[in-house]
Structures are given as structure tokens and as C-alpha cells.
């Protein structure tokens, strides 16, 4: 079909055809005079019909946007916006979704390049794209649940480093033996009598906690090597391994 579209003028026939399927049909312009048509469909099952109309006008699918109230909450997607280029103008099909079904029909039979956007929406927002013949994962690994990025921890918070003090407190608890999976036995007596944590200095090897063997600390292999080395050169070994008093003094300085 010949279309009379340009970036500044969307074919009235196209606007009228989409209006028949639309709950709302709004034309807007930007500061440069480009026209944008925003068409809100009534039901998601109208999507293939609307896409077929656009294909007849030589449209090209640009992208698909999933919209929800809060993208970090495990809640259903409200709608999918399909953005098309029609000879320079942009037509956006706003497709509302039924939260109980969270299903949208595929348009890959009309626009082959809808495959990646559909698969991305499916796995990141836990949607079901009905009829997509290539439902393999795009970004997430197969063993990860769909939509999991909204459920575990917002990646943005992780990337910001804004993970509170929980992680460090957990490590501290592990070192003190208060955490459930600690490799260290819990020191006896009241907490104020527990040995202080040892600060690791570059020039000094970490001092073992009192009463713990190298095997318990996982240093057994290193220790054996050190002994072997010490056998070869007692003088060298003494220089590299500071006396326990020196380690303790260094630790106290570090804590101070």
C-alpha cells in the first residue's frame, strides 16, 4: 500500500484505521514539527490487527517498552508500548494487559524484528508472549526464573554500592563465630572478653585467632611450605615471619 506519511505528516487513512481499534488516538507534534501518533488499544488481542495495518503502511518496528507502576516491584506489567517508524513519523501502540493473564499476542509473523523485544519483555517482566515461535532466553540464563530481577535485589542498588552495612556486619559475624555458617568456633565467655578482630596489614601476615590451628584457619598448606622453607634457611624465615609480640603490637596500633 502507498502511504502518504512523512515525519511531519501521518497519513490520515492510517490514523483513521487505527482509530477504529483505539480507546484513544492522539496526534502530537514536537518542537521540530515531527508528528507522533499515540494509539491506546482496547484489548491486547487487537494488537496483531493494528500491527497488520501498520505493516500495510510500510511501518518498521523500532522497539517495545514495558510499563508498570514500579519496575522494581514484582507486580504485573500494565501495558506494552510498541513504537513504529512510518516513513519518519512515530506511531506508538499502547497495548493494555490483563494483570490476571499477563499475556500478549506475538507480532513476529508481521515484524520479524519483534522477536528480541518480545523475548526481552517476557524474561525481564514475566510476560507470556502467545505465539512466539522462538521463546528462548535472550539475556537471562535458563535456570533463572522469569522476572527475577524485580524480586531479588534491584540491580541498580547493587550497582550503586548502596547495599547498607548488612554485608560487612555479616562478615564480622562470620569472623566472630556468631554467624550460622562460620568456619570459626564461637569463642567462649561473654562477648566483651572475645579476642579483637585482627586487621590484615600488608607487611604483616594475619595473626591467627587464639586457640585456632592452621588447619582450622585453612592455612595448613601454607604453613607446611613455610616450615619447609624454614628448614632451608632459618634466618630468612625468621625475617619474613614476625614474632607474635610484633604482630600483636602492630594489630593494636592498627586498631588504635
Amino acid at each position: 500500500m502507498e502511504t502518504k506519511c512523512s515525519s511531519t505528516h501521518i497519513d490520515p487513512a492510517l490514523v483513521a484505521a487505527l482509530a477504529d481499534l483505539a480507546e484513544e488516538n492522539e496526534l502530537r507534534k514536537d518542537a521540530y514539527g515531527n508528528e507522533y501518533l499515540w494509539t491506546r488499544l482496547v484489548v491486547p488481542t487487537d494488537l496483531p490487527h493494528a500491527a497488520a495495518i501498520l505493516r500495510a503502511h510500510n511501518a518498521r518496528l523500532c522497539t517495545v517498552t514495558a510499563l508498570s507502576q514500579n519496575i522494581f516491584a514484582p507486580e504485573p506489567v500494565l501495558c506494552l508500548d510498541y513504537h513504529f517508524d512510518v516513513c519518519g513519523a512515530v506511531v506508538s501502540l499502547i497495548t493494555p494487559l490483563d494483570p490476571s493473564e499477563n499475556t500478549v499476542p506475538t507480532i513476529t509473523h508481521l515484524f520479524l524484528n519483534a522477536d528480541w523485544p518480545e523475548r526481552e519483555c517476557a524474561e525481564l517482566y514475566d510476560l507470556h508472549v502467545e505465539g512466539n515461535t522462538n521463546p528462548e532466553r535472550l539475556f537471562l540464563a535458563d535456570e533463572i526464573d522469569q522476572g527475577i530481577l524485580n524480586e531479588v535485589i534491584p540491580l541498580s542498588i547493587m550497582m550503586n554500592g548502596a547495599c547498607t552495612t548488612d554485608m560487612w556486619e555479616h562478615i564480622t559475624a562470620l569472623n566472630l563465630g556468631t554467624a550460622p555458617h562460620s568456619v570459626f568456633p564461637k569463642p567462649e565467655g561473654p562477648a566483651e572478653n572475645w579476642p579483637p578482630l585482627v586487621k590484615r596489614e600488608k607487611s604483616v601476615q594475619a595473626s591467627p585467632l587464639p586457640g585456632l590451628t592452621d588447619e582450622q584457619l585453612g592455612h595448613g598448606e601454607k604453613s607446611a611450605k613455610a616450615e619447609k622453607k624454614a628448614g632451608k634457611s632459618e634466618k630468612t624465615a625468621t625475617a619474613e615471619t614476625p614474632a607474635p609480640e610484633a604482630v600483636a603490637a602492630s594489630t593494636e596500633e592498627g586498631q588504635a
Partner: protein
Amino acid sequence: MSESTLTTTYTLPIGPVHVALEEPIYFRLTLDGETVRKIHITSGHVHRGMEGMATQRNLFKNTTLTERVCSLCSNSHSLTYCMVVETALGMTVPLRAQYLRVLAEETKRLSSHMFNTAIFGHNIGFTSLFLHLMEIREHVQDIKETLYGNRMNLSTNCIGGVKVDLDASLITYMREKLDMVEPSLRMALKLFQTDAIAAKRARNVGILSPDKAREYGVVGPVQRGSGIAEDIRRTTRYLVYPDLDFEVITEDGCDVLARALVRLREALQSIRLARQCLDALPAGPLHEPLACIPETEAVARSEAPRGELVYFIRTNGTDTPARLKWRVPSYMNWEALTVMMKDCQLADIPVIVNSIDPCVSCTER
């Protein structure tokens, strides 16, 4: 190895980390001897959740965030992001700022295209070509560093205009640099058009017919290398592109060589556009103040070095966007690799992958 073993079909994994790949992506190839029969692409290794991060920052901070989606087309991201905010808020950018934005865009395009064609030389073992193109590109890097203070992220775009102005001495400096780049670039273009080694490795390799290009919705030099004359700078009105004189470059070869030639010829067009901007740069303010933020949604597009870049925003009346979504050019071009690489030789894979100028960082966001 016996002949029967060589002709057996087998699966070869390439990536996610591999010497032939600049960024992590995983290809599972089905090969018949040395011939590729089937390609399966798995992505997601550098997904950073940037769209989610954008909804936790205000509109100003997102200019900085979006400029870091990608390094080679960083300016296009901040530009298109600013354009989509300006569209949503109904703002008009001053004319001087529009010229300066075009200048920054074309400088980045020039640099990006030269980098990609240089990498082509590297991929085919034509080291002197790689070094020559990178040496020419260094002049463009000098332009960026001198005009904007950075070699990659120019940080010139802001909502409502630009932050970096040019005085007479900087304009003269850029003119001189462009005069140095152009003859060298023309020489490189001639080399690509005539050199037997380049032709041997790039002609009739990675074929993407115009029909397939339309079917897969590819964009940018990949699309124009298949003979389709579509360029957002021409099909859509934005900035001062409608007032500038330039040619939408196409090549009919539909192969790796055609895509490389499109980029080199487009680089020359970028020089042409930059000179027009320097000649016609009007006086006036650099930016407009921020308008009131309504509850609305908007779309903006630009022609980034790799093709059409789309930004969508939904605002909720606050200074933090309710949703910011972008679709990068590489996102549309990846799937076309399954067509380009089908029945190609294993050794051609790096050349074909490079011909779409892929950006994993962009794709996964």
C-alpha cells in the same frame, strides 16, 4: 584427520570471552567442516540494569548516566535523552545550541566510523591499514580533547541545549584538523575501493540482501550497505539537519565491503557537515531553562554512528522519570548476523561480526 571427520557437522562455541570479540557475547555455531550452517546468539553477560538506574535519578543526573551507556556513541545517547526530555517538557533548544549539537554528533560519528574500519584492517591482518586509520583518527581525538576536554565522553549536552561553547580560536583549530583528516581519509577510501586484500576478505562476504535487511529491521550503515537509503537525519526533522547539505550514503554490495565503504564515505559527509556548522554558527544563548515537568510520555530519535537510536520517557510530574527506555542500533542488527553468517567460512566470522559495528554494552544496557 580423515576427510570424513572434516565433513561431520559439529558445534563450536565462541565466547562469551574470545580474542575475536571486543565485548562478551556467546555464539553457538553449527559447522560443517569450516562452513557455518547455523548460528545461535546468547547475550546478557554485561547487563547492568541501566534503565532501572535511570528511574532512581533525576532528569539532570540521567544526562550523565546515559552518556555512559556506550563509549563510541556516547554523545548520541546524551543527545537523544536530552531531546526526549525536551519533547516531553515542550522545550525549544536555541539555534546556536542546535548547531553545536550537530558539530559534536558529527565529530563522534567521524571518530566512530574510522575506529570500525580500522578494526576491519586489524581483523584481516592488514596491520598497516589499521595503524594508518588509527593515526588519522587521532586527529579527531585531538579535536574532541581540545574542544570538549575529553577524548570519548564529550559531556556537552544538557537538557535545553549545550554546555560547551566554541570561540574563534577553537573554530580555527577544528578547521585545521579537518583539513588534515580529509585527504588522508580519501586515501583510505580509495584503498578500500581498490585493494586486493581488502576485497578478497570483504567482497561477497556476509551478504544481507535488501529484502532481508527490511525483514530484520536493521538500521544504520548495515541498512544502507544493503542499498536502503534511510537515515534519521534525513527522514526525521531534528536539530538543524534539514538546513544542512549532506548525502545519504548507500552501497549496493550488501556485503562487508559495502558496509565499510558506507562508513568511510559517511565519515567524509561528517566532515562536510561539521564545516557547514562552523561556517553558519549563529550567535545566541547556549541553553534554555528547564520547563515545568508534566505527566506525559514522549519519544525521540537520532541517527547515532551505528544507526537509529530511540529514547522513550514517561514522566510523572516529578524530577525523576517514571520510565526511561532506549533502544540502541546494535539491538536491531544482531539477529541479521544469522543471515550474514550462514554458510560463511569460520575464518570470516570476526570480519562479519565487526561489519555490523556491534556494541554489547549498548545492547544489554
